[in-house]
């Protein structure tokens, strides 16, 4: 391994492998976090300005979301080890690290989507009601339809923060660019690795943000 580090082709291989792992973890966690839609919709519906205001449901769900969001990711990672083992059969490795990433992404999506949906012009919702739309139709055809650009913004936000979290996934053998930066770059004082990893991450984040902005513009 040490030999490989000194050679550029070795570095390339390591980086390529790490990049694959990062992309794999981040995108799978992002896709799985779609579950967050359910609490997002419930929060939107039961909010004081929602279609079915319900203080108790809203407050309880809101509290749960806050609890999960307040865990530092590294702690969540450790706490979830038994759960991860139950789900994927093992607690370490790239696939295993998707579990804590997803668990942290769900409340994130719930909150970000809630605020995106609730930004929908209440007048438009009233208009839909005045034409006899059902609550379900209003959610699909008004809330979601009108919020698409904001939802995309939320997903971009999620992807970028998951890229950051995925660095910590190295603790459970998740791998990825961030992990390389910590282990090779920081812990082994290998500045070259630190710089390369940082540059890759910067480009990666920029790219995601650019795609997101482009989509936002196109869809709004």
């Amino acid at each position: 391994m040490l030999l490989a580090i000194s050679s550029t082709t070795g570095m390339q291989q390591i980086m390529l492998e790490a990049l694959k792992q990062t992309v794999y973890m981040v995108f799978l966690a992002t896709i799985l976090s779609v579950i967050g839609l359910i609490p997002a919709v419930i929060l939107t519906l039961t909010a004081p300005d929602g279609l079915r205001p319900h203080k108790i449901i809203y407050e309880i769900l809101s509290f749960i979301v806050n609890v999960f969001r307040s865990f530092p990711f590294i702690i969540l990672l450790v706490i979830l080890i038994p759960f991860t083992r139950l789900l994927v059969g093992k607690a370490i490795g790239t696939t295993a690290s998707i579990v804590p990433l997803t668990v942290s992404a769900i409340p994130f999506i719930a909150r970000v989507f809630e605020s995106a949906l609730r930004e929908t012009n209440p007048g438009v919702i009233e208009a839909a009601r005045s034409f006899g739309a059902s609550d379900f139709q209003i959610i699909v055809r008004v809330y979601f339809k009108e919020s698409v650009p904001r939802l995309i913004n939320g997903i971009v936000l999620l992807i970028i923060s998951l890229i950051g979290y995925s660095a910590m996934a190295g603790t459970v053998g998740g791998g990825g660019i961030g992990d390389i930066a910590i282990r090779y770059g920081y812990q082994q004082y290998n500045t070259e690795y630190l710089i390369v990893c940082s540059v890759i991450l910067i480009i990666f984040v920029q790219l995601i943000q650019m795609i997101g902005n482009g989509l936002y513009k196109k869809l709004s």
Partner: protein
Amino acid sequence: MIKIENVKKSFGELEVLKEISLTINDGEIYGIIGRSGAGKSTLLRCINGLEDYNGGTITVDDQLVNVKDKKSIKEIRRNMGMIFQGFNLLERLTVYENVALPLRFWGLKTNTPEAKEKILNLIRLVGLEEKANAKPRELSGGQKQRVAIARSLVLDPQYLLCDEATSALDPEITKEILSIIQRINKKLGLTVVIVTHQMEVVKQVCERVAYLSNGQMLVEGKPEEVFIKPAEQEIKSFLKEDSTKLPEEGVNVQVFFNGKGSSATEPVISKMARELEVDFNIIWGKLEDFRHNVYGSLVMNIAEKDKDAILTYLTDKNVDWEVIS
């Protein structure tokens, strides 16, 4: 026919509607006017169940408006188009898609040739055929309200509810929108309920009007009856007419031209001057266009000695008058 009987509504402690009763006949353009906070919009929202009410009854074509009965309220809403002050179009849909949207809510096909024809016809009716594929943000306020009108008609309603629909528009555009509303009232026989705080709206299109103040109905009647010679101080101050400075000498007589008596058919004032051989000063006057009829009032300052002759003459001619000080 919309029948509102003793309708009450409160938000917590605050009573916003106090025992309101009125009837809106088929085919008429009915105005509900008053200052902001008078309860006008709330009353309008009670008609199609966007708001619930706490007492009394509202019926639309003998069907009770009951928010808890989801099915019947849906049917009532289908029969009532609504337009709003803020237009309330979906920003991400084109003009065409916005107009088509209510059809989707009712599970009706929007891609059949008939449906397409219908949607395009409505867009044509409001004069926006060139903008059919534009998004709302490319449109002006007046154009947005036209789209909203087309959308409100797509389910073939018998009623059109207008909630301050022209309040965000400048006077010229307001006139355009009102003439579209008038046109569809005539062409499609729609019953129109207009909530507004703008006198111009009432004057231009409303056949009957109710004046609301603090959740109560002060008067109801033809606009020319309600507003040319208002008895209520509140309405006078709404019309800002109580600040006129009058001469202190002689007698000030206000003559009303409200479609009643001889003032409707002959030049009463000049005839009076000639027949009685009296002189007077006209010190204040206001003539307004009510649905293309000119109504108004003027104040004459007459000599004390001519008072009896003039007032008798006016009474004989059946003209409304009032001595004011």
